């Protein structure tokens, strides 16, 4: 812990990692709360996993054909947005089962990624960092993008709070109130997609769902209203990501996994507290 604090002033990569944790927590808390109350954690899961396809393809093009702009981040953003659009296009169609659509996107995205990664030099390290993230490798571009997403999310959540709540609670009633629910839903999915991509840089594909769902679920247990839940879930995300980073750094453990472990512990504690409170006469 002390090594983490003293090294902060020394190493800029560590400061960047801390910055990334803070910025991502804002996005994660807001989006995680809406994903949780809308019960669409698995949508986030499908989008996260299919980004492997985008990252694998982009990395292949970059390494094997020298296409300089094809960075894994670009690939991940494109794959996530594509998945978001596909889900939004298919989800309310009669005869379409959302869980099937999600499984298909989830698995084919990963398969495409694995195929391209196997044909790319440096196979192992790439795959590990995509799957489990590497917050210490975060770039200035990542930080700027996350900051922009934060500004967008905070203003949307602030100005459209009642509309977003109403749609999350009862989509049909919102449609009857004349809200363009389909447009809201599509934007929501694209925002989830972008947030997922940025979180993938931090904690990796496999752990994204946990970082979206666990702090928000813990926040839901200790708050009664959506704005409070969002705030609490941002704070719990901050707690999980900063302490995860601080614990893992001196021990030279993967930061992403440690962040999730802390998030899981927070969730357990919140569940325990809320059960105790409910038992009280």
């Amino acid at each position, binding site marked *: 812990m002390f090594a983490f604090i003293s090294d902060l002033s020394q190493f800029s990569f560590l400061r960047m990692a801390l910055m990334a944790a803070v910025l991502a927590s804002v996005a994660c808390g807001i989006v995680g709360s809406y994903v949780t*109350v809308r019960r669409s954690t698995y949508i986030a899961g499908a989008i996260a996993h299919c980004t492997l396809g985008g990252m694998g393809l982009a990395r292949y093009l970059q390494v094997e054909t020298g296409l300089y702009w094809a960075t894994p981040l670009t690939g991940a953003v494109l794959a996530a947005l594509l998945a978001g659009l596909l889900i939004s296009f298919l989800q309310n169609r009669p005869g379409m089962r959302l869980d099937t659509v999600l499984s298909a996107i989830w698995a084919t995205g990963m398969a495409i990624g694995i195929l391209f990664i196997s044909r790319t030099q440096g196979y192992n390290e790439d795959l590990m960092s995509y799957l489990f993230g590497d917050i210490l490798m975060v770039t200035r571009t990542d930080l700027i993008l996350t900051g922009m997403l934060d500004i967008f999310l905070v203003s949307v959540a602030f100005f459209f709070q*009642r*509309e977003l709540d109403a749609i999350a*609670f009862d989509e*049909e009633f*919102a449609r009857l*109130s004349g809200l363009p629910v389909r447009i809201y839903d599509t934007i929501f999915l694209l925002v989830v997609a972008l947030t997922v991509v940025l979180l993938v840089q931090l904690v990796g594909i496999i752990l994204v769902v946990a970082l979206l769902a666990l702090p928000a679920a813990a926040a*839901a247990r200790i708050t009664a209203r959506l704005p409070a839940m969002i705030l609490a879930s941002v704070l719990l995300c901050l707690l999980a990501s900063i302490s995860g980073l601080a614990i893992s750094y001196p021990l030279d453990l993967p930061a992403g996994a440690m962040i999730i472990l802390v998030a899981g512990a927070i969730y357990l504690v919140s569940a325990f507290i809320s059960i105790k409170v409910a038992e009280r006469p």
Partner: protein
Amino acid sequence: MSRPQKTEHRHQAGSADIVLEQVRFTYGREPVLEDVNLRINPGEFIGVIGPNGGGKTTLLRLILGLLKPDTGTVRVFGKPPEEVSHLIGYVPQHLQFDPAFPATVMDLVRMGQIGRRRKLIRGHEQEAADRALRLVELEHYKNINFASLSGGQRQRALIARALAAGPRMLLFDEPTANVDSSSGKRLYRILAELNKEMTILIVSHDIGFVSRHITSVVCVNRTVVIHPTSSLAGQNIIDLYGQDLSLVRHDHRCSYEGHSCSHS
């Protein structure tokens, strides 16, 4: 809630609140509703009954504008339903909602004031929400969690959400589902009070609760027959359906009585 002038749409629809003419709706290849002609006048308290799969919910969704008829026309207050959706207070079943949704009763009521529903209450949103809560007798619950309400209270909170935009009509889908009988009685006492201000239409299996207050019964089984008050008063329905109404097969009774509302 004063009623706006209705003269502008007297021409075709008369002064009826709901008019369906020659409506046909098919789901896949099966017609769910056909030859539906229906006219609901202002101030009525309508109970919509019929067997499961007979088209009750489809009828409700056509009136709400959530479904479009294959042929025929649906007019609410003389206009297509989607143009007047802010005048229609819709109360879905409370069972379909996530009971853990993080919102207070007041948050829920204010959700009834989004989009087009701001039209009639602009600048008076908070008063309208407070009034809605008083009408359903939940004014002391406004800061309580939706999650900690009973079934009957949740149903009343959803009515308050529907009332929060000053509608001229209330539509219900099975309001007494999973509500105990004393809460059900209270619910209908409140509805009878609201009926002095607005038209009410209830889709229900449980017409026994409604019978004392309803003015007409609409029997739905692929087609629609309306029984006005004069020919079918509350007591007559009990005679017709028996006391334990949840056990009655509406389709059989309807066809035995020769109402031609069943094709079975």
